[in-house]
């Protein structure tokens, strides 16, 4: 196939928070940037983030970015890289001020400064009282942020390829030369040739049956990286949010608990007081989710089937709920049929966030391993946001650190690309065979005439992940799940779409997405099965304890199933390293 080539300084795959933040950094200095987004940018999943974004501004009480760093490291169950966490927490206030200057409508306090609320795992003075560190725009922070970033890009005149789908990275001898993409509306295929390629494609929560994630969260960038021969890191770590609406899976933000709401079981007991007397309902998300799962399993769940718990907020009063939590109220009324002003919301732990992703350093440069087993920077490739693993979240992400991650490292990616181009980074020429290679899966889907339907395989995949790789894991289940998943991968090769139209063919896009879902599910299954310990969100019945002696390390997974390990960075540049300790001792 002869495809048109478009030349850009940088191509950004993904029009969510990370991609848009990176684009601003580049287009405002006049660099020629293409943003490929499979949806109109304001439909990206950043829009669903509710509670807020952490930064030690100290508007509510004295605060310090080192305390934020401490909380993040402890929250990560020590799997996070301390140099990256230091960078994120230190750059957090500046990143927030920039967003404010761009126009983000933050909620305010009396003196006109940004309002900051309490959130899970946030403490003052290294583990003491609850901190108020989460900046927000009511409970629509992601929406406010995404729209602000898009609006700023309109002003900076970035070039959008809206409703285009990136198919694969184009690789050559030196590194990454850009990406192939297809226009959803017309079927036109192009190669976007760029000096730098930034993957900012978000998460892949759609590998699970029950998820807070949007339909579009199919791990596209990570699938692209794997197929190009690059690794994914820490894919066993998936966050289950304690408060997904029972049934629909829509998210009910932690800010409900931050504002004073709490979870109860069928006896009306506030059970988090029993499990975690210090931080209670604002313990780390993995802990609260496990406690809820235990309550349900031990027969203290609510409802006719006893399969959910209740989130109580009516004691907060109508005024507070209407001003601080209006979006939550709307969601609860629409999807749970309950008004939190009057009655509690039925909730269950629900797949929410992927801590793993494309390994990067804190400049957002993607990393692989060379033949000697050393870290090697991939020339021309960057990743930021949920699809990246810097790693700032380690084994468990703190609430309101994801919007921070995507802003800080989207910004960092932009800054590093800009600097690299100034220092001479230029286009590297791919062969036509390299471009053909990056179109091969499109040919496969276009060519397959008869076969299983995409939806059949997708549903089976989601059920396996839900049943065998959920909140609690055991070798027995994972082994069975693994075999089923491998079978499913073989079936995927013979799947087919009947719709071959070039006009807004969403069946074809869903087929291309399924390749990515499969790649991510396999990565998760391989890594989860391999890690014989419980750490953060990875909880095993058969290995219930954290094992620092054997498992204090990142896992790197390659597409062929090979897993190697990377050491964790415990050397921040200017602050004191945070030494290993049990999370229970802190919380």
């Amino acid at each position, binding site marked *: 196939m002869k495809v048109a080539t478009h030349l850009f300084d940088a191509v950004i795959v993904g029009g969510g928070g990370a991609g848009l933040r990176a684009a601003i950094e580049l287009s405002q200095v006049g660099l020629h940037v293409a943003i490929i987004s499979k949806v109109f940018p304001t*439909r990206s999943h950043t*829009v669903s983030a509710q509670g807020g974004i952490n930064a030690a501004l100290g508007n509510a009480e004295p605060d310090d970015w080192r305390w934020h760093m401490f909380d993040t490291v402890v929250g990560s169950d020590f799997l996070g890289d301390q140099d990256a966490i230091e960078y994120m927490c230190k750059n957090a206030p500046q990143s927030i001020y920039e967003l404010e200057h*761009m126009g983000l409508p933050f909620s305010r306090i009396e003196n006109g400064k940004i309002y900051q609320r309490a959130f899970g795992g946030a403490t003052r003075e290294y583990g003491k009282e609850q901190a108020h560190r989460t900046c927000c725009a009511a409970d629509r922070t992601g*929406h406010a942020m995404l729209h602000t970033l898009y609006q700023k890009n309109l002003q900076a005149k970035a070039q959008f390829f809206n409703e285009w789908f990136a198919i694969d990275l184009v690789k050559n001898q030196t590194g990454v030369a850009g990406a192939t993409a297809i226009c959803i509306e017309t079927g036109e295929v192009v190669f976007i040739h760029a000096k730098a390629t930034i993957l900012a494609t978000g998460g892949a929560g759609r590998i699970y049956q029950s998820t807070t994630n*949007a339909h579009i969260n199919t791990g596209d960038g990570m699938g692209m990286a794997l197929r190009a021969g690059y690794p994914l890191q820490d894919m066993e770590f998936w966050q289950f949010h304690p408060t997904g609406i029972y049934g*629909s899976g829509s998210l009910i933000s932690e800010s409900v608990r931050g504002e004073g709401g709490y979870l109860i079981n069928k006896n009306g007991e506030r059970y988090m007081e029993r499990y975690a007397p210090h931080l209670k309902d604002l313990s780390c998300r993995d802990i609260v989710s496990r406690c809820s799962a235990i309550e349900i399993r031990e027969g203290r769940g609510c409802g006719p089937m006893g399969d959910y718990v209740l989130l109580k907020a009516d004691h907060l009063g109508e005024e507070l709920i209407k001003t601080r939590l209006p979006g939550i109220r709307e969601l609860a009324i629409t999807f749970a049929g309950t008004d939190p002003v009057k009655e509690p919301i039925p909730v269950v732990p629900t797949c929410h966030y992927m801590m793993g992703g494309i390994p990067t350093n804190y400049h957002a440069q993607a990393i692989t391993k060379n033949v000697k087993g050393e870290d090697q920077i991939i020339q021309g490739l960057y990743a930021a946001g949920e699809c990246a693993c810097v790693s700032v979240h380690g084994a468990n992400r703190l609430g309101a650190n994801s919007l921070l991650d995507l802003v800080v490292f989207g910004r960092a990616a932009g800054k590093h690309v800009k600097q690299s181009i100034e220092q001479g980074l230029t286009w590297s020429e791919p062969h036509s065979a390299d471009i053909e290679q990056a179109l091969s899966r499109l040919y496969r889907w276009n060519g397959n005439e008869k076969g299983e339907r995409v939806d059949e395989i997708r549903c089976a995949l989601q059920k396996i992940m839900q049943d065998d790789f959920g909140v609690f894991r055991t070798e027995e289940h994972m082994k069975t799940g693994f075999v089923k998943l491998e079978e499913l991968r073989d079936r995927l090769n013979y799947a087919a779409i009947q719709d071959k139209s070039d006009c*807004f063919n969403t069946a074809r896009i869903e087929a291309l997405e399924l390749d990515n879902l499969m790649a991510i599910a396999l990565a998760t299954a391989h890594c989860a099965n391999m890690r014989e310990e419980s750490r953060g969100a990875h909880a095993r019945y058969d290995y219930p304890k954290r094992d620092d002696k054997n498992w204090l390390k990142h896992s790197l997974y390659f597409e062929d199933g090979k897993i190697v390990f990377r050491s964790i960075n415990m050397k921040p540049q200017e602050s004191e390293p945070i030494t290993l300790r049990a999370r229970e001792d802190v919380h």
Partner: protein
Amino acid sequence: MRFSIYRYNPEKDKSPYMQTFDIDVKEHQCVMVLDALLTIKNKFDESLSLRRSCREGVCGSDGMNINGKNRLACTAHLSSLKEPVVIRPLPGLPVVRDLVVDMSQFYQQYEKAKPYLQNHDPKPATERLQSPEDRKKLDGLYECILCACCSTSCPSYWWNPDKYMGPAALLQAYRFIVDSRDTATEERLADLTDPYSLYRCRGIMNCVDVCPKDLNPLEAINSMKDMILKESV
């Protein structure tokens, strides 16, 4: 439950037609219209094209005309709808395929509102201050999800989609006009004084009636008309 769905693929159909589907909504656990549409697409006819993303009413992808009213498929309860449920693309915009419309003109009007903060004063080292009262003025404005339900329910917009900005874009114009941090109020108002951009609004309130986020573009439009009037006397 019976659904009658607008179908049109310009590659193979000479003209659009309505197609009937009977779906066991209980068996497929459909609560919202979007659930039913995805059941049709996933289980019966993969060629049905529509946009969807968040499925919880915040991304604005799945605005469509359901039983004669523009709304989001993901928040439209099946239990509230009469059968057959008639689903058409948003009216007034060119149809790309099935329920997918060409939104470019809608986005162009949005861009005409210069929907970004303008303030040329030196940036402070920390945040610009804004009182809670001033911040409150943005409530009911910034929450717009650009679903286009309002603009495509407006006859003035149907007549002049190239010249009348429409309620969604005007809501954004006002969102920046009342932002205490924005300093371009005069220019913004001046941009609206031609006979079309703002003044084609006749106040029939279709926009208010359909907004899935319960926003009130008419109030914003009237406020801007008042401001322009006050400036001119």
